[in-house]
Every structure is written in structure tokens, then in C-alpha cells.
């Protein structure tokens, strides 16, 4: 790709980007959310037309007007959100859009099945062509997407944030698959914002910041350095925190069961506690009951049994409003869905849960001036980048929206702070800031419960880690626990077995990398001075 420029109005999403992918190369594309990675790949895949620049395949300039052209040119894409028909079989999904037919337009299921089997066997995918997509795990669905690309003779496969939905073990398998593909001569563009993964697998890493290529570096570059390149200033990747001094248990959860609307048991007899001044992280792969558990704590689930005691008072059966009034701060998992009203102003959002009580309201009359002045203070304190407190919350970036929700929830005295995925989709610079605030809340003595699917976050922030699998807690461990052990626990292996298995099988690709010393021979002093971002972070 040469000199690709893509503008959306005044915004330059891609600014003269050059990117070369060699045959049989894994090329990491690293950048924060909103840096322009996906735009660039959508240009390559024909979903967007560049305003300037051209795409060359094997030295030939090529015009790509749509995904059809891209596929014809040997470019395949695995989207972050899979494009599969859940009720179709794997084979049907693979041939969808490029159906194999026999004469008179009859579908040739046999040849599609055979193709899936061949590819599956060649790369060790272990995919059953007759399984229905909705029945197979996410990791396997992703392989189906890769098979789809390969079935169309893709020479370049684009993987857009492929590890976001995977367990550490599945990630490891994916890395294996990527290496297989590379060995067979397929090039891979690996889009991610996870430093650890890109270093583990990529041959070269191109870092994009604000629509432009910052630099292309070898994978030996240290994580700290990559993060600096991504963000444009030095960032601390570890969370500094005081040694933890827990007090008495304040939140005691006992035999909590949650049954969802369709009658599935989502949380199955969970018991744990969170102590005064302690951060407990609920780790686990997405969809193992963490969301429902947290919603049950907040009175947002209907069918809840068991007991949740906060400071000795029962929360089960109380309404969300009563629980919030007890001093529970809650950062929901999906901030734009559950945490913010997008069309409301920043100021209104900062008063969302307290709009009907002093100082914001007197009787049913609200005080816009107080709502505003409250917002001005919080925006300043939490460094929310906004065009003003009257700007709609939807105009903020993901990181700033998250700061907004955090600011609201931390702006009153709390007896418990619950944060689901506090840094999901948040840029590296803001992650640091958000973690600091969470730790600060803990240091004030508030019990903190965090739900996270990111092992890095769990290990960095938590004082204790409870791993959830299929609605139950597999085990509660300390933050010094080995990544592989945690990974196995997230797949449902009990603690003892996980320790044993991890010890036997040796470190996985990602953990191995941890143990290797950081080799950072390159000096990149310019990264901070050349492009300073004002303010930012703590």
C-alpha cells in the first residue's frame, strides 16, 4: 500500500500511509483505538475507497472497489465480529458467497465439506465441517473465518483484533495457526493493540498513531517502547500500588444463583468476599457469568437467590436505586449501552444517577447550574477530553467516555466500587490513569470488585483473583499466580490440576516471552519530544 490517505470530513483517518507486506510474513499493525488501523484495512479490503494513494499487489497497481475485488486479488479478512451465519454448518458458511455448484445451480455440499476438511487437516485446525456454527466455541468460529479466507486462495489474511474474544489458551493456538500459515507462504496482517501478542508473533511491527505510520520496528522492541510509540509519550505499563492492607470483609456473597430470562443458570452458587481496602478481580473468558453476577449485585437481574451482604445489610431483593443509594459505585461493562446516555450532555451524564436528589434537584425541580458546575469540576479532575460539558457524551472517544463513567461513580463516598471491564477499548494512556484511580479508591479503604477478561489487567491491579468458569468460581488465587495457571483455570481446570498441567507442559508462547529478557537495543529518544501530547494521564 502506497501513500494511502483517507479523510472523513476534516478528519484525516489515514495520512499517506505506506505499508508493505512481504510474502510469508506476519506483519503486526499496532495502534490505539481510533489510530486508523481498521480504516486502513477496510481500504485494503475494498470496504472504503482511499482519497489518495494506491494498492499494489505483486507490483501491479490494483483498483479495489469492493470485497469481491479484494478476494479476487487474494486478500482475505477476518473481522473482529465474525461474519458467519449461526444456523449454517461450517461448510455452508465457508462456501457462502462463493457457492460450489453442480450443473443447474445445485449446491455441491460434498466438495465444500471436502475443502474444509482438507484445509482443516493441512493446518491442524480441527474443525468439523458439519457442525453448526452456533454450537462451536468462539475460537473455532474464528478458525472457520480463517478457513473461509483460505478457501478463496487468500495470499494475505487480515486478522482484525483476533485475540479479543479468545482465552489465553485459544490465543496460543491461534498463534500456532498463524505460524503454520506463515510457513505455507501466506502473509498475515495482524491488527491489535495488545503489545505482548504482537511481539510474540510478528516479524515486523508497524505502529500507527493518529492516522500516520510512526515507525516500523522489529519484534524485539520492548513493550514499553512500543507503548511509547503508540501513545506518543512514555507510559508505565505496570500499576504502582501500595502494599495491600486488607481489613474485615465488607462484601460477602454467599451461594449466589442467577437465572436469566430464558431460564439458563448463569451464576451457579457463587461465594466470595471482598475486604476493606482490597481489590478482587473476577477473571474469566467473556460469557461465563461475570456480567450476570455483577448485575445481580446491582439489583439489575430479576431472578436472584442467595445472599449478598454489604456491611452486614442484605442487597438481594433491593432495587437498583436502593443499592446505588447504599453507596455502591458501578461502572458497567458496556459503557455506551449501560453507562451513558449518548445524546445527553457530559454534564447531564455526570448527574445521571443522582439527578433527582440534592444538590442537583430540589423537589422535582432540577438545577442546571449545579449540574454544570459539578461537571466542570469532574471533567477537570478526571481529565475528560471534551469540547465542553455541554457536548453530547457520544462525541467523546471510548477512553474519555470511560473516564466520564468513572468520574461519575467515584464522585461520591462509596461503600463498594464495582467496575466491569474498566479499561476495555480504552487507549493505553487512559488505562494507566483509570488503574491509578481504582487503586486510589482501594487505598481510601473502599472494597473494589473488578471484572476483567484481560489477564494483564487482572494481574496488575488485583489483590486477589477469583476465576469464573460456566457460572462457578474455579478458584481464588493471589496476583503472583502464573499466567498459564490462570489461563487453564479460565478454561475450567481446577487450581491444583492447572498448576500441575502448567508445570508439565512448559510455558506457552506468550509466557515464554515474559521470561526472556527485554531486549531493547534501539534508542528512540524522539518518541517523546517530537510529538508531545499535552496533559494526559496522571
Amino acid at each position, binding site marked *: 500500500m502506497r501513500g494511502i490517505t483517507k479523510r472523513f470530513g476534516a*478528519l484525516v483517518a489515514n495520512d499517506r500511509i505506506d505499508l508493505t507486506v512481504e510474502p510469508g510474513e506476519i506483519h503486526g499493525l499496532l495502534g490505539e483505538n481510533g489510530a486508523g488501523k481498521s480504516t486502513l484495512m477496510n481500504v485494503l479490503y475494498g470496504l472504503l475507497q482511499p482519497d489518495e494513494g494506491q494498492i499494489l499487489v505483486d507490483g501491479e497497481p490494483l483498483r479495489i472497489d469492493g470485497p469481491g475485488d479484494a478476494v479476487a486479488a487474494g486478500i482475505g479478512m477476518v473481522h473482529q465480529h465474525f461474519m458467519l451465519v449461526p444456523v449454517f454448518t461450517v461448510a455452508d458458511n465457508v462456501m457462502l458467497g462463493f457457492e460450489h455448484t453442480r450443473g443447474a445451480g445445485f449446491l455441491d455440499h460434498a466438495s465444500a465439506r471436502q475443502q474444509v476438511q482438507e484445509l482443516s487437516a493441512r493446518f491442524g485446525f480441527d474443525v468439523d465441517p458439519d457442525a453448526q456454527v452456533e454450537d462451536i466455541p468462539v475460537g473455532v468460529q474464528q478458525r472457520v473465518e480463517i478457513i473461509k479466507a483460505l478457501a478463496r486462495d487468500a495470499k494475505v489474511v487480515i486478522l482484525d483484533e483476533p485475540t479479543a474474544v479468545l482465552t489465553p489458551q485459544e490465543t496460543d493456538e491461534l498463534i500456532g495457526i498463524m505460524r503454520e500459515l506463515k510457513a505455507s507462504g501466506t502473509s498475515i496482517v495482524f491488527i491489535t493493540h495488545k503489545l505482548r501478542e504482537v511481539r510474540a508473533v510478528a516479524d515486523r511491527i508497524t505502529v500507527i498513531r493518529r492516522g500516520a505510520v510512526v515507525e516500523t520496528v522489529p519484534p524485539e522492541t520492548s513493550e514499553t517502547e512500543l507503548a511509547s510509540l503508540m501513545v506518543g509519550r512514555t507510559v508505565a505499563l505496570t500499576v504502582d500500588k501500595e502494599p495491600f492492607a486488607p481489613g474485615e470483609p465488607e462484601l460477602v456473597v454467599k451461594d449466589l444463583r442467577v437465572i436469566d430470562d430464558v431460564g439458563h443458570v448463569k451464576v451457579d452458587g457463587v461465594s466470595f468476599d471482598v475486604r476493606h481496602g482490597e481489590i478482587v478481580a473476577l477473571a474469566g473468558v467473556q460469557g461465563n457469568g461475570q456480567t450476570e453476577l455483577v448485575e445481580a449485585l446491582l439489583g439489575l437481574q430479576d431472578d436472584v437467590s442467595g445472599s449478598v451482604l454489604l456491611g452486614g445489610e442484605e442487597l438481594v431483593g433491593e432495587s437498583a436505586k436502593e443499592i446505588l443509594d447504599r453507596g455502591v459505585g458501578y461502572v458497567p461493562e458496556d459503557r455506551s449501552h449501560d453507562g451513558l446516555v449518548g445524546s445527553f450532555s457530559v454534564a447531564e451524564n455526570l448527574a445521571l444517577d443522582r439527578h433527582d436528589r440534592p444538590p442537583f434537584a430540589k423537589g422535582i425541580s432540577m438545577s442546571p447550574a449545579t449540574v454544570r458546575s459539578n461537571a466542570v469540576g469532574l471533567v477537570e479532575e478526571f481529565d475528560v477530553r471534551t469540547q465542553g460539558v455541554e457536548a453530547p457524551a457520544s462525541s467523546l472517544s471510548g477512553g474519555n467516555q470511560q473516564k466520564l463513567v468513572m468520574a461519575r461513580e467515584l464522585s461520591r463516598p462509596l461503600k463498594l466500587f464495582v467496575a466491569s471491564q474498566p479499561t476495555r477499548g480504552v487507549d493505553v494512556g487512559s488505562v494507566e490513569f483509570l488503574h491509578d484511580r481504582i487503586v486510589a479508591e482501594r487505598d481510601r479503604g473502599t472494597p473494589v470488585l473488578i471484572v476483567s477478561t484481560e489477564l494483564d489487567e487482572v494481574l496488575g491491579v488485583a489483590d486477589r483473583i477469583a476465576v469464573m468458569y460456566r457460572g462457578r468460581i474455579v478458584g481464588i488465587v493471589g496476583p503472583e499466580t502464573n499466567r498459564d495457571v490462570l489461563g487453564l483455570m479460565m478454561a475450567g481446570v481446577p487450581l491444583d490440576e492447572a498448576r500441575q498441567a502448567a508445570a508439565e507442559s512448559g510455558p506457552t508462547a506468550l509466557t515464554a516471552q515474559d521470561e526472556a529478557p527485554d531486549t531493547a537495543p534501539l534508542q528512540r529518544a524522539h518518541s517523546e519530544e517530537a510529538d508531545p501530547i499535552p496533559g494526559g494521564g496522571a
Partner: protein
Amino acid sequence: MTGTATTEAPPPPAPEEQQWAPTGRGRQLRDTVVLTLLSVLLALAVSAVLIIIADPDVQDAAGYLFSSPGDTLRASWDAVSNAYVALFQGAVIDPTAVSLTSALRPFTESLVFAVPLIAAGLSVGLAFRAGLFNIGAEGQIILGAIGAAWIGFALDLPPVVHVIAALLGGIVGGAIWGGIPGFLKARTGAHEVITTIMLNYIARFLLLYLLSTTAFQRPGRNDPISPQVDTDAQVPLLLGDWSRLHAGLLVVLATAVGVWWLLTRSTVGFKFRAVGANPWAARTAGIHTGMTIFLAMAVAGGLAGLAGAFQIVSTERSLTPGISAGIGFDAITVALLGRGNPLGIVLAGTLFGALRAGGVTMQARTGTPIDIVLVVQSLIVLFIAAPPLVRAVFRIKTPSAAGTLQVSKGWNA
């Protein structure tokens, strides 16, 4: 990703920042106003074509179009200009009138028509803001009219009190009829569009039934009509006998201010808007969404009921099967044209009142069917709902993605 990228960029220095927000908002407002006016203009232009086609003189002239094309053009011009001049004279001011009062009378007539339209428009608009589509204003108007009429003719109350009681009776009647779908939605999730439409039918037949009972039917009459309401239960005229303009105008303007206050300055309105814009976030923030939905529908119903009461206590005076006069359906258009904003609804209601008043004059003076007014109204809706179309016609550049969204907000949600 493209959306977030805008704000990922470092913010401009502080002073510049301060200027940005108001101008951006002001530009959006101006954009909305311009688009609305252009939609009205475009609707009138398209309707002009229909007037030309339907005009008998034009049809005659078109018979010899090729021998004398000028005649066809002249006849077309005459047809359109006469129709629209009559529309204007019937709606705003009639310079051909013999006296000052009869020259001004058309505008007061427009306001008379506007009063119930504004009240019902506020009903639909308020429901919009709470994320609800109140298609049931028509039924709520009927119930409001029933309540107001019964209090008006069956009770004997002192002056002033009687008219206030009648208006309150209308509000209560409408609130009950609006509250039912609100309750059903809050409790069972039944979609309010379906339930309000069905309740419109029920209201209509309920009215027909009541008008056949001794409690409601005027003694000595066989047709469905109620007794007249007491003179005490009628709103006073504002300008004397030459105009039908009544004090209901003041009531409805005060109501508009009240709705504005409720929506923007009260905790109740905050809940309405929060639930309307994002029920999940509202629920997470401890807002009781079911209660809020019920309350919003009841308040909306009350506003529509007020419109029904206005019909009874001002112009109509007795309950008839046609008491709602389609106001409840026009109210949807009024609320759309007014963008769910009370001031906008007052202006839109006045425009629609003017179209109703002018349409009558137009039909009487030029023979142009009053249905053309319906076409104008429908086209306005069409153009409002499709801002890109209007922009394309007038070659206006799309200001920003946000602007487009703003215009159609509430309808897509």
C-alpha cells in the same frame, strides 16, 4: 472507529474549545430551521404541480397546448397563484375584506385551529422525547372530549370553576387513555404503537356507544350528539364577537411552557429523556424505567385529552362522533415538524392551523380541493423525514454527520 478518531486527536487549546461548543450547537439549530422551511417550500412547490393538473382551465388550455402554449402557462400560473393567494388570505390576512376586523379574522381563525393541534402536538412530542410513539392522540382526544363534555353539560358548577373542571376532566380522560398503553408497555412490553392504534378504535366506538345512551345523547335527538355544555363551561372569547379566538390559546401556550419546563428543568423530564434515549443506562443509573414509561404516556395522554377538552369548551360545544377531527393524526406531523421541541410544536401547530383555516377559504374561492392541504402536509412530513433529499434539491452541503442524525432523531431510535 471513524467517529472516535475525531476526538482521539488532542483537543485544541482551551480558549478555542470554549467557542466551539456554542457555535456548533447554533449551527445545528440554524440548519434544522433552514431545512424545515425548505421542506415546507418544497411541499408547496410540489403541490402546485397537482393544483395545475387538477385545474379545469389548465386542462382546457392544454387541449390546444401546441397551437398556443402561452395559454396553458398562463392558466397554470393563474391556478396556482389564485389557490395560494386564497390560502394565504384565508390563513393570515385578507386585504380584500371590508373592515379591519374581518381582514384580521383569518389569522385568528388559524390560531383557533392551532390551539388543539398544539396541545395534541405537545402530547406526541413529549412521548417522543421519552422514546415512545404516541399514535393514540386521536383516541386520547376523544376520551378527553368525553370527559370535558360530561362535566360541561351534566354538572352544575359556578363559572370559572366549571370551565377549569371541564379542562381537567379532559386531561384526566386523556391521561387514562394514554396510561393504559403505558402500563401495558411497562408491565408486558406490549408495543405502544400497536396498543395506541387499537385504543383509537376502541375510543371511537366507545364514543359512538355513549352518544346512543341517555346519559350522553341530547334529549329529543335521534342522531349521535350530546347536549351543549353550559356557557359557564366554555372558555371566554379573547377579542370580542368578531373572532372565535378564545382563552384556550393562553392555556395552551402556558402548557407549552410547562412542557418545556418539565422536559428540560425537572427530574421527571430528565427521567423521560434518559429512558427515551437509553433505557439501559437509565435503568443502570437506578431509574425505574417501567414507572417512567407509564408516567410519560399518562402525561402525553393528558395533553391530548386537553386538546379534546378544547374542542368541547370552545368551538364545538357538544360531543359528536367527529369531535377529534383528525387532530390526533395531524399532531404526529406537528410534533415531527416541531422536532419534539415545545417552541417548535407551537410554531408547527400554528402553521397547520393556518393550513386548515386557509384550506377552507381556498376551496370556497377557487374551487381547489381542500385535499391539496392534506397533500402539502403529507409532503412536509416526507421531506422532513428525508433531509438528504431536501439538501440535494437545494444543493446544500451536508454540514456534518452529526447534523443529519439530529434531524431524524427520535424516529430512528
